[in-house]
């Protein structure tokens, strides 16, 4: 059981040099969680990875489309649910049409969302009035 409440809200410029910073937040959260009985090292890596991949996607989308060059990332943990939201200001995409990688003919791109889907419990992408939100949930 995890009874703590953690809320993190970060805004970064759309630059890949901040990926390490964002990933590290996830790693620290996993390592510092009280009462987590699972594989802490694995969770730390997975949160680092998922935050890195989601932020990379947001940076890529934003870079093409808009002068509003920031990405907002929120992490909320409450009642054993870890919720990550990544807000981008790009054109958006349809999550349902992103294919699962073909492992026999693996290409260089397209693995990021596969990692997010595989390692987390729920993923959704919604278009809002002035931004898009990738919401990722992991039950601890």
């Amino acid at each position, binding site marked *: 059981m995890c009874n703590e409440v953690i809320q993190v809200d970060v805004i970064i410029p759309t630059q*890949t*040099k901040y990926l390490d910073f964002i*990933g590290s937040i996830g790693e620290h959260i996993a390592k510092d969680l009280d009462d987590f009985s699972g594989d802490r090292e694995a969770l730390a890596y997975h949160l680092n990875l998922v935050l*890195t991949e989601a932020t*990379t996607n947001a940076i890529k989308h934003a870079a093409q489309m808009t002068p509003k060059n920031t990405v907002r990332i929120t992490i909320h943990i409450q009642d054993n649910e870890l919720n990550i939201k990544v807000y981008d200001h790009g054109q958006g995409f349809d999550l349902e049409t992103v294919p699962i990688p073909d492992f026999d003919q693996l290409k260089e*791109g397209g*693995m*990021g969302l*596969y*990692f997010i889907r595989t390692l987390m419990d729920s993923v959704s992408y919604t278009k809002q009035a002035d931004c898009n939100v990738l919401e990722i949930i992991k039950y601890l």
Partner: protein
Amino acid sequence: MKLKLEKIKGVSVIFIQEERIDAHNSGELKEYILHLIEQGEVNIIVELERVRFIDSSGLGALLSGYKNAAAKSGKLALACCKQQVLSMFELTRLNRVFEIYADLSEAVENEA
């Protein structure tokens, strides 16, 4: 991307000097490997001992190197992966594509 190149028994060994390969530095790694292959160095080992984190773009850079080396009848192999880095190759089944060696001397013996 900090890295070091050494030629050992005819094999080009790239020592990655970073703890992290992600979208910030993977493009540079990809270009570096491609440049090496274009110069005719098609037998390559990437030594990953210091790397504790790799993302999809990092895997993509190594896969690009593997494909480009293979296209010139060469090979790109990996050595000294930490367990969690190795698990990324397993998750994407890239462990079936790359030859992954536990230590560098074994890698050089087999790839030379």
